[in-house]
């Protein structure tokens, strides 16, 4: 199972802070994104960054391990 987290503006457009995507061997972070973007297109309009297990992901072809924690995030506005 892949745990997916949403925060702030993204969570607010989706209406939830967390979702799950079934794990399958070879699943890439892009696959998780595609699946969720189809489900929540308005929220994904503002997604700028992805993270896997608390680390920024630049290469969306990153394969995910089972039980990974993934986040799709809007532009940060802290500070």
């Amino acid at each position, binding site marked *: 199972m892949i745990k997916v987290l949403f925060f702030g503006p993204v969570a607010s457009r989706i209406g939830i802070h967390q979702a799950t995507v079934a794990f399958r061997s070879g699943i890439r972070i892009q696959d998780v994104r595609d699946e969720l973007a189809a489900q929540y297109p308005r929220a994904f309009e503002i997604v700028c960054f992805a993270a896997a297990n608390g680390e920024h992901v630049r290469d969306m072809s990153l394969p995910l391990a089972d039980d990974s924690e993934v986040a799709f995030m809007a532009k940060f*506005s802290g500070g």
Partner: protein
Amino acid sequence: MKPAVRIQLEDFSVDEEVSAIKTSSMRMGGIATFLGCARDFSEGREVSEISFEAYGSMALSELNRLRTDAVEQFGLLDARLVHRIGTVKGGDNIVLIVAGAEHRAPALEACRWMIDELKQRVPIWKKEITPQGESWVTSHP
């Protein structure tokens, strides 16, 4: 002494963080700080409150990395970073960056670099609550 990097609901004291950073070296001649506060307006709109949400574990590890990078890159003796989450009002403290070095130039430059990087790297989001409603800030100067 509190950890050098924190994300917390409660307010912080600049004096307390300055005292804490001083304990790391008697060779510290310059301590630069940047304190971000809640303004009561933003882009022409009155703002009554600001609310912050963080991806806590990642934000904390990014802040720690920022501290390590700054210490190494600017030759600091030490650095501290504190960011509040939850809801703050106009005038309240939001974020504090403290950089201590032997001389003033690296302390001031590192302080500037850390606040700029924090805004780029650290997963925290701001919601402005105005009399007309609330909205997440999705772009930032």
